[in-house]
């Protein structure tokens, strides 16, 4: 019996080996190597002859405010909070409107509203960049000019770039949130509303005491995933404002675009790796916290 069990174990390991080996080589090992680089002064001038500098890079990132990491982190937290708040409120309202019973064309509307999610993300972002925000032939400026206003350089200052990125992110992310909330709404028993209405509860009371409490557990996992993807957002900010060769002059960074810039634009490999490790630690902390809450 012992022997048979052991043989089964070995077979399990052999069958899982290719997948685990691949993960080990392409995911785990690069993370460890990133950690190692983060302890060195590796950059373009020190490509081979880099030396270990201990925690210098971490100290620079965390305690030197000018380094830019802390402000990028603050911007990212603000970005996540604003995006999530808008997403939750707008998706909640839209999902509720979509579920008004006499709305016949609901399916058609839902399908059309899914488009931004269904398209390749980078294509959507680039269409916004050229089609909407471009100073010459972007629609926004064409409309402004027709109304007699001067053209605006949408992506060139921090604040307006932040707002533009938020709009595009909403455009990309709302469909998922609407779909999740729509599904949650449909799972609520209609009879609750009927008896609440009989008892004289208004629309606001029904939303507060029936809809929101009933939805919360259903949408929680999706909301957590969205918080993570928003916090880890790279594509929107990078493609709209930071692209190599097409920088717009905005200094708005999420931590991911900040790490990318330090690795591939300014070539501070050691420093950028330290930032990567800090971000990883933050993400681990968050996910551990949410996991604990889910288990409990």
């Amino acid at each position, binding site marked *: 019996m012992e022997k048979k069990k052991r043989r089964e174990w070995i077979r399990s390991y052999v069958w899982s080996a290719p997948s685990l080996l691949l993960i080990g080589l392409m995911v785990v090992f690069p993370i460890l*190597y990133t950690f190692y680089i983060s302890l060195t002064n590796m950059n373009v001038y020190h490509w081979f002859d880099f030396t270990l500098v201990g925690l210098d890079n971490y100290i620079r990132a965390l305690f030197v405010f000018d380094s830019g990491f802390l402000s990028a982190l603050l911007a990212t937290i603000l970005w996540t909070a604003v995006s999530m708040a808008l997403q939750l409120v707008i998706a909640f309202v839209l999902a509720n409107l979509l579920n008004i019973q006499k709305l016949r064309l609901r399916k058609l*509307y839902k399908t059309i509203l899914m488009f931004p999610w269904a398209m390749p993300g980078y294509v959507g972002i680039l269409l916004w960049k050229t089609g909407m925000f471009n100073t010459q032939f972007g629609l926004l400026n064409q409309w402004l000019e027709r109304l007699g206003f001067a053209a605006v350089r949408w992506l060139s200052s921090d604040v307006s770039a932040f707002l533009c990125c938020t709009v595009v992110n909403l455009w990309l992310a709302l469909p998922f949130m609407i779909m*999740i909330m729509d599904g949650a709404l449909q799972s609520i028993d209609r009879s609750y509303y009927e008896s609440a209405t009989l008892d004289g509860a208004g629309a606001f009371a029904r939303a507060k005491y029936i809809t929101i409490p009933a939805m919360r557990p259903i949408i929680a996992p999706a909301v957590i995933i969205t918080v993570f993807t928003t916090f880890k957002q790279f594509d929107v900010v990078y493609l709209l404002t930071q692209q190599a060769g097409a920088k717009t002059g905005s200094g708005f960074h999420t931590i991911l675009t900040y790490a990318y810039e330090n690795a591939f634009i300014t070539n501070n490999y050691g420093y950028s790796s330290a930032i990567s490790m800090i971000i990883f630690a933050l993400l681990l902390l968050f996910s551990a916290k949410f996991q604990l809450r889910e288990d409990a």
Partner: protein
Amino acid sequence: MMTKRKLREGAGLTALNLFFIALCFLTLIPILYALSVSFNGSNSLLSSDFSFIPKNFTLKNYREVLFGENITVWFRNTIFLAIVTVFLSLLVAVPAAYCFSRRRFPGRKAILRCLVLLNSFPAILSMFAIYRLLRPMGLVNTRLGLILVYTGTMAVFSLWNTKGYFDTIPTEIEEAARIDGATDTQIVLKIVMPLAKPSIVTTALQVLIYVWNEYIYATTFLTGESKYTLAAGLNALQATEMTGSWPVFAAAAITVSLPVLVIFFLCQKYMTSGLTAGGVKG
């Protein structure tokens, strides 16, 4: 009394419909604009009398996309990368997922927990490390290098997603087959795989779409436009020579999006279930 209420209800419903029509239009504006530009023959982009219906209808831009030299090469590169990556991903993920779902062995729980944690690591952050590791091996600027990166990046997801689905398949049929003398390989190929078709299809599609949409590794690791994938090429098209080729870019963007849109709407049910089930739950 009755008619008055009905009237008010009707007005409300009309307002609601108008609201949604406006919202749908608003959502589609960037796409509609690109569509209109891609079909527009005259170079009237800078004139102020813009409309969503192209004035000089032409297929010239699409012809350039479909038969232009660069884009066909990018298309071929992407298809090649996508097929190999999907095939490799499934080849390594399915047997591992089967073991993690059906067998109990020391280290199983620990590995699963690690995989959840690894999932929260954005692949972009280790890009430099990967670059530095692949360069001495001569794998930077090659398809093989990108295939390794892509399969590696999607390996955690593929394993987790298929394992999650295997867990939901009852084991009785397998036990019966085992009593009849079927081997493990036979069980996986003849019983589990057919039953797990939805999850295997979703996994394959997700990997396919990932490769189809991935641009940052492709632009960083590949030099020379002849090696580019569609995403990388499109990205280069708009970043470098935007003013001249915005109509071509618009046509390319629409063309590249079409297959993804079709896949998405055909498999919407699968895609969304995979997203919500595979995510956070340990």
